[in-house]
């Protein structure tokens, strides 16, 4: 069964100019998003996962950043070719985004009701009372109790979890086809995180929205996403269905990422065991060699890894990895 992707990114490159020349923060990134799918993008800080989201929204800070190459096709149209005003019609309407910090991503001087309804009025020809009605409806949908009263509250009167719900209500108010969630729960407590994911899952089913979930936490991906892309130093290193990636990952980085996190067990035993670690730190993007950027931290490294960039290889159905040692016995 082959579906037409809703969003397709081809060969995306983003460069940042710094004092010491330009740094490529995204390098030849390809990805696609199917309708109704939840795609996870996972990696450490600086791997380019947030930059991917900003590029799709065309919100890369320019300068110093610049999308230097590639295509971003939304329903077949390249959003990189659109004018800024055409793009404004798409943002918040076709593609919406929610951010990590619910504390700072709402404007503190306006009521939450006016912030949600403004987005509705901007993109849909609704008058004030229709927008208000829609706002109450949206706030109710994201599980905010007594929305008729809440719309007159200011962001500081709400808890972190409630604010993130408002952000989601705002992002979903125009029924976008794509919702990008950049670390939506990192600042929240686990019980609140669970509530937010429950909500996102419900909304995704009811509204048939495709979701791109960006996170550093593989276990969040495991619970929420259908398919996952693992990124390292501005490149995609592995891509596949969630269960394939978690149970049969092929790239040593993905394996390291999964194994280095303590997993909550029913029976942890009495003795503490040592965690696996990925040695070293993420490389400086300005000083990458010609080969695989993970090579200096990789336990399977061979000479070839330092010299040539490994191409993407198919290792299973819908499962791709970029590693010279794919297929070799560990």
């Amino acid at each position, binding site marked *: 069964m082959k579906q037409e992707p809703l969003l397709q990114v081809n060969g995306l490159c983003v460069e940042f100019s710094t*004092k010491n020349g330009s740094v490529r923060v995204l390098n030849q990134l390809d990805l696609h998003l199917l309708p109704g799918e939840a795609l996870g993008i996972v990696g450490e800080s600086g791997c380019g996962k947030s930059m991917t989201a900003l590029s799709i929204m065309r919100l890369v800070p320019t300068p110093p950043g610049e999308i230097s190459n590639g295509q971003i096709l939304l329903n077949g149209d390249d959003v990189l070719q659109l004018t800024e005003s055409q793009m404004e019609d798409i943002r918040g309407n076709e593609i919406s985004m929610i951010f990590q910090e619910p504390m700072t991503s709402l404007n503190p001087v306006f009521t939450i009701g006016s912030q949600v309804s403004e987005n509705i009025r901007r993109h849909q020809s609704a008058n004030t009372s229709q927008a208000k009605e829609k706002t109450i409806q949206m706030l109710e949908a994201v599980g905010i109790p007594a929305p008729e009263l809440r719309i007159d509250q200011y962001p500081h009167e709400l808890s972190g979890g409630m604010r993130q719900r408002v952000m989601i209500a705002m992002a979903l108010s125009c029924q976008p086809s794509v919702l990008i969630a950049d670390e939506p729960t990192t600042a929240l407590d686990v019980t609140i995180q669970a509530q937010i994911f429950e909500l996102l899952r419900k909304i995704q089913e009811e509204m048939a929205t495709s979701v791109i979930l960006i996170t550093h936490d593989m276990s969040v991906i495991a619970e929420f996403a259908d398919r996952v892309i693992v990124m390292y130093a501005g490149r995609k290193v592995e891509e596949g269905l969630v269960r394939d990636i978690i149970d049969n990952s092929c790239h040593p980085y993905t394996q390291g990422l999964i194994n280095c996190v303590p997993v909550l067990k029913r029976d942890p035993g009495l003795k503490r065991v040592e965690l696996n670690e990925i040695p070293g*730190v993420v490389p400086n993007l*300005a000083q990458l060699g010609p080969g695989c950027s993970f090579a200096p931290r990789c336990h399977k490294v061979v000479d070839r890894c330092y010299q040539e960039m490994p191409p993407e290889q198919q290792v299973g159905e819908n499962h791709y990895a970029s590693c010279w040692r794919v297929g070799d016995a560990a």
Partner: protein
Amino acid sequence: MNNRQELNPMVRPDRPVVELWLMFFANKAAVLGLVLWLLVVFTAVFGLTIYTGDPFEMVGAPMTPPGAEFLLGTDYLGRDVLTGIIHGASITLAIGFSATICTVIIGVVIGVLAGYYGRWVDNLLMRVTEFFQVLPPMLFVMVLISLFTPSIYLIVLAIAVVSWTGMARLTRAEFLKIKELEYVTAERAMGARNASIMAKVILPNALPPLIVAVALNVGTAILFEAALSFLGLGDPNAYSWGYMIGSSREYIWDSWWTITFPGFAIFLTVLGVSLIGDGLNDALNPKLREL
């Protein structure tokens, strides 16, 4: 353990102080300010040895226009304007600096105590600060000076008394912010004393905005002194630029040079410190450093 955690040379800056100067010297306006300022300091320090003479002495015909005999002319009593400007430089600088030093001492001490100890100390000191803030500064200085005999020390003190409030508020704000940071708690966890935390840990980190404020304060103090002397409230024995302007103000239509040259000297000096202040502000602002 692994030792592959290479430090990358790209983001290896020099020591913070060196980095600061590099940033400062990359700023053309700031360098211009520094040049102007050095010129004034040079005049004040070496001018008197090259160009000796008492500024109060009547050396030529009154109101001689600038020319070959007197480079910048003479005033209504026949005093040489150039000698006055050179002498005035040292007086003006002395007042600017000492008033600023007094301002900093009062302001920083009060700000540090209020910001660090908080609670009633803060409440008390801030009420005192507010009291001084609501007084109109020029009027207050004039009252202070007319109560006593005007002298250079009194003027310095009066200027400090009206200008320390800003410094105190700034110091307090920085202290309130920094004392909440974990490295201050860490210092306490290691058993450091309050005095050492204030002086060695918080104060150095609070310095950047203070340095900028100090630079700008020198300019304000100079202007204050000029205004006082213009009003005839300055020290009559101190031949400052403000005094020159003040004493010649009635002859402005007959001898433009007696007012223009000291006025220009004040303008350039204050412009110099402002440019230095702005340059330091940019150089000390971490947000402007990278990229």
